[in-house]
């Protein structure tokens, strides 16, 4: 009897220790099939990766990726063609004198003329390029690497990334992108902003895991 009780105690200690260990260690192997329902718990790696795929689907949508180019120009349109009138990146991603982004893009959408607008319209820095030099969108693994690399992402940690996705005006713009010149509404990313933030949160809580395969 006493041995059985001791064994139970030892087992539960080990179980609790394991749980504590996995909770505190973000880079842990997946615990398949274990459903954890407490609100304060961290996401699993699997959930994190799944959430990342959702985030990736938004980041690589035209409304976002058009300004995350590897080249010296932005793109426009759902077909992501090179922006007309030879506008270029410039030294700070804000264009060049005479052809700054804000030459045309104002603080809010100009639906009467079909020009999108948001606060401080500019290109993402080259460190945040999500395409290659041939305008081909990078893989999920590559974009995840770029986004989580603190030497490239303006030193944002997981919480910083979450805040960025929640609050950054140009991120918000993607979900209210205004109308084209022909009056039709611009295509929206595959998630709403709320869903995007939620997915980001899940991913961040999983420790911002990145897929390993290409």
């Amino acid at each position, binding site marked *: 009897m006493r041995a059985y009780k001791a064994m139970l105690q030892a087992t539960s200690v080990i179980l609790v220790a394991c749980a504590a260990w996995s909770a505190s260690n973000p880079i842990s192997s997946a615990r398949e099939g274990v459903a954890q329902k407490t609100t304060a718990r961290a996401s699993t790696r699997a959930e994190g990766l799944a959430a990342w795929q959702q985030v990736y689907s938004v980041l690589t949508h035209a409304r976002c990726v058009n300004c995350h180019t590897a080249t010296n120009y932005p793109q426009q349109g759902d077909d992501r063609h090179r922006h007309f009138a030879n506008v270029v990146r410039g030294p700070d991603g804000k264009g060049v*004198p005479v052809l700054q982004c804000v030459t045309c893009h104002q603080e809010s959408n100009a639906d009467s003329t079909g020009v999108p607008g948001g606060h401080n319209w500019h290109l993402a820095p080259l460190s945040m390029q999500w395409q290659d030099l041939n305008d081909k969108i990078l893989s999920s693994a590559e974009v995840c690497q770029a986004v989580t690399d603190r030497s490239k992402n303006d030193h944002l940690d997981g919480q910083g990334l979450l805040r960025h996705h929640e609050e950054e005006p140009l991120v918000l713009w993607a979900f209210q992108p205004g109308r084209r010149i022909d009056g039709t509404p611009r295509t929206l990313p595959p998630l709403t902003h709320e869903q995007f933030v939620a997915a980001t949160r899940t991913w961040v809580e999983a420790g911002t895991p990145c897929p390993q395969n290409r």
Partner: protein
Amino acid sequence: METYTLTVNGQPKEVTVDPGTPLLWVLREDLKMTGTKYGCGIAACGACTVHVGGVATRSCVVPVSLIGDRPIVTIEAMAEDPVGRAVQDAWVSHDVVQCGYCQSGQIMSAVALLRSTPKPTDTNIEASMGGNLCRCGTYVRIREAIKTASQQLT
């Protein structure tokens, strides 16, 4: 319809227009200032270039409702502006214009360039003037005139 008080070339101007009206058409039709031109309406050609809050702006795509209290400067004010005058003089001495329709926009763009980059290189000129169309093709002389204006000013 909304009423806006715009500051145009230093003067207050009151207009009552539909808020979505591009600044270009407010200038041309409500204020009768036709120096700023309509070439395409989608900001692809630069003929409509004015300065808003000191920044070169394509007035055909900026609704008057988004101007706020930023001062507007147009081609009509360039003769009285030192940089504007130098650019116009260079344009005249190099005989730049042909039909002339794009030149208000070219000059407004050149002035903005020279204000930010008083000694522009060929690369600067090409990048900054790269969005201004001239169907007559006066680009060679535009390059030369910008360099002359720069020399005059520096």
